[in-house]
């Protein structure tokens, strides 16, 4: 051990004593408004040494706002912050950094062509480039080893995966010397497996004497991976509880203010096979074969769930089904249309195949165009709104108004508002409103609840069930096994580009999990 005393050892009692120790960071009476909107209303929050503190709540509950105050991005209207018992004033990110507070945001702030070490150096400049680069490398390696990260620090950040980029962001905060570490929805962009690795690393961070705030809307994450849970709703703190004292339904009630519980409800009307997939094989554009052998049927009036760890070919399967990626071999048959293996994307849509993609900002919405345009595009393509020579804007707008109302898309101030301004849940509802407007016979939904809170994802699930109940064949691909178990009438498991097992609901969760990770 070195003799240099670590700041963390000041309390000198070694390991964390969660119930007894005094908080090292306290926020009290924090109030913040944006115009007329009260984002934080007299909020109290504290953080103890060596704990993982989950901050739980729906989208818009005020979790990120509260953390932005402590990270120096927002100035609070009222309230005080104490660090180690001293009152402090945090006027900007640099003040926060001086206080050893570091935040990893949902959207990473990395320079893509630069390597990890260069990115980290960029936020802590000083000394000559070569010298500091080498020193930085050592520094990073040391911090990374401490929490079990492995990152290639010399590859351009653009070539790293999302999970690796996130590690770079975390290392950036650690190298800056932070020991209050705030992670804003860190697992939202990760697969289950990557998320698990991250949560393990977070635990190690806490074990090393740091204090971690885990901002999340995921119940099981909060319950299984934190020492304390603070629940926020509508800009206020509902309560702070210990995970062992609370059950998931109680937590849900605290989050949404009422009980939203979704119960499985099997199909009553499963009919003839609507879509048949036979011996499908396909390669990515870079030539890598990712779909090796996929066979399944989806019947009318059923939800066919495809479970699997992310990156086993789900994304490519969606592209193949919607006609964006050509097959190398195999066939797709649509009831009454026959072989559609080589039909174009627009033809398949006209045959009634609708898709809710997982990355809605990239593949489902044109953010710069209006809500009305985004809703109407599929209708324009099938000729519902005017002829080739003239778009019928009036008809388009009244249809948009009706759909916004029917699908409860909130936050639409006007029809000409850009779609990018909608929140995740409302953007998803808009996508569903459009995709369901043509009464599709086949619905492909890929991780439809990604980034949505409990209420919005229940609404999305109800829409999928109602599509099934009116006779559509629904294919649900999700890495969230809870979602699959909740909705599916039959479940296929995708592993290494093939459907390796099939189960009828209600299925054995354990058996599904086994098929997901099996290697044969």
């Amino acid at each position, binding site marked *: 051990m070195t003799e240099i005393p670590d*700041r963390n050892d000041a309390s000198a009692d070694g390991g964390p004593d969660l119930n007894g120790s005094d908080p090292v960071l306290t926020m009290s009476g924090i109030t913040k408004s944006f115009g007329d909107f009260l984002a934080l209303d007299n909020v109290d929050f504290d953080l103890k040494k060596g704990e993982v503190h989950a901050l739980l709540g729906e989208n818009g509950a005020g979790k990120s706002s509260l953390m932005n105050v402590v990270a120096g991005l927002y*100035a609070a209207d009222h309230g005080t912050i104490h660090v*180690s018992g*001293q009152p*402090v*004033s*945090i*006027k900007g990110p640099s*003040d926060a950094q*001086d*206080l050893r507070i570091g935040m990893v945001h949902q959207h990473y702030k990395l320079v893509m062509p630069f390597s990890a070490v260069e990115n980290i150096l960029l936020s802590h400049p000083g000394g000559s480039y070569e010298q500091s680069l080498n020193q930085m490398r050592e520094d990073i390696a040391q911090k990374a080893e401490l929490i079990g990260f492995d990152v290639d620090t010399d590859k351009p950040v653009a070539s790293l995966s999302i999970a690796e980029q996130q590690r770079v962001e975390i290392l950036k905060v650690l190298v800056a010397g932070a020991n209050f570490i705030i992670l804003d929805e860190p697992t939202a962009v990760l697969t289950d497996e990557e998320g698990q690795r991250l949560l393990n690393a977070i635990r190690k961070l806490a074990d090393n004497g740091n204090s971690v705030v885990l901002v999340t809307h995921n119940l099981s994450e909060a319950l299984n991976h934190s020492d304390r849970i603070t629940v926020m709703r509508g800009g206020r703190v509902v309560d702070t509880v210990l995970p062992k004292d609370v059950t998931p339904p109680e937590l849900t009630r605290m989050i949404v203010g009422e009980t939203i519980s979704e119960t499985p409800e099997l199909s009553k009307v499963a009919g003839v096979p609507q879509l048949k997939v036979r011996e499908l094989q396909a390669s990515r554009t870079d030539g890598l074969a990712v779909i090796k052998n996929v066979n399944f049927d989806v019947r009318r009036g059923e939800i066919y769930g495809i479970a699997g760890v992310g990156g086993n070919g789900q994304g490519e399967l969606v592209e193949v089904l*919607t006609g*964006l990626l050509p097959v190398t071999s195999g066939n797709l048959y649509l009831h009454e249309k026959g072989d559609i293996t080589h039909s*174009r*994307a*627009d033809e*398949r*849509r*006209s045959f009634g195949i609708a*898709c809710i*993609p997982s990355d809605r900002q*990239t*593949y*489902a*919405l*044109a*953010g*710069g*165009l209006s809500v009305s*345009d985004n809703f109407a*595009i*599929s209708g*324009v*393509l099938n000729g519902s709104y*005017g*002829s*080739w*020579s*003239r*778009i019928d804007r009036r008809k388009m707008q009244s249809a948009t108004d009706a759909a916004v109302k029917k699908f409860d898309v909130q936050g639409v101030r006007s029809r000409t*508002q*850009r779609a990018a*301004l909608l929140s995740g849940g409302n953007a998803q509802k808009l996508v569903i409103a459009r995709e369901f407007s043509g009464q599709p016979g086949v619905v492909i939904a890929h991780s439809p609840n990604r980034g949505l809170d409990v209420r919005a994802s229940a609404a999305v699930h109800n829409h999928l069930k109602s599509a099934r109940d009116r006779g559509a064949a629904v294919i649900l691909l999700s890495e969230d096994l809870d979602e699959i178990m909740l909705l599916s009438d039959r479940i296929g498991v995708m592993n290494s580009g093939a459907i390796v097992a099939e189960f009828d609901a209600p299925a054995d969760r354990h058996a599904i999990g086994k098929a997901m990770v099996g290697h044969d």
Partner: protein
Amino acid sequence: MTDIAAPTRWKRLNLEIRDHMPFWQQSIAVAAAFAVGLIISVVILMISGVGLADLWNEFVVFIFTSPKNISAVLVQAAPLIIVGLSAGIAFKARFWNIGIEGQVIFGAIGATLVATYDIGPEFLRLPLMAIFAAACGMLWMALPVFLKLRLQVNEIISTLLMNYIAFNFLLHLLYGPWQDPVSAFPHSEQFESFERLAPLGWQSLNYSLVIAIALVAFCAWLLLSSRYGFLLNFVHSNAKMARAVGIRVALVTLFAALASGALSGIAGFAISAGIESRMTQSFFIGFGFSGILIAFLARNNPLAIVLVALFVSTLMIAGQSLQVFYQIPFAMVQLIQAIIVICVAASEFFIRHRIRWVE
């Protein structure tokens, strides 16, 4: 432990991202940037020795009080409007057509081909010249667009390089088979009277202005109210989403690129048959840059393209007299254009961001 004491509360400027700015505010921001550009240009011109009163006279009084100058501006504006439309429709599909000059050259070659070899009866000669011009402009676009859509070859490079090929082919024709047999100068034979765009009967105005206005009307319909224009908006905004939602992006892009080539070709026809009455070595110079600039300043809107083209044309005509009477180089006109473009481009920053005093 660093204590962050706060004895004084400083006000500081904060840069924030703006979600949305209403259309009227955006218009004000762009107009203000335009005004700033003009002011900078005026200062530069004054430094180079032109008095403020002289500038006012040259740019406003002489242009707008003399019918001769007004018509000169309009005649010059016609091809500028057409190349502006050409750039606008290509940019709308995010197809960066830098090869407008090459397509203008090929348009003029097509028109001159019809005129030189007396193709078709006299009364059909002009329409044939226009059609050949459009077809040749399109032909010159065909290779870059094919390379782009089939092999992902960057169109900025391919269209740019095609300009040099077109220019050298033009020189080959003018020094070789199409050299004027009468004067033996390296330009084509003068067009017959029925091969020139007829005068409208007021000053020097001719039918090229009518063609430009008709094309504006066509493009306004195409981009603003047809189904194609609606789809093109999606390709412009998010091509991946457009493809996923069932728009045939390649087809939409192909059409926009070919239309752009055809429009540039017609511009070549309008210049050679409307202004020069023949094909010269240098008739196309500046139209590529001006077209890109006009489309950019007009945000690819066909109606705004007319206004910006008139402005650029006024600058060019006034610049000619500056050149004659004040020995100001013509490059100064290009400098003014560039300053205004930079200012308007910078206004984008204020549309996307807000600067506020915060404590």
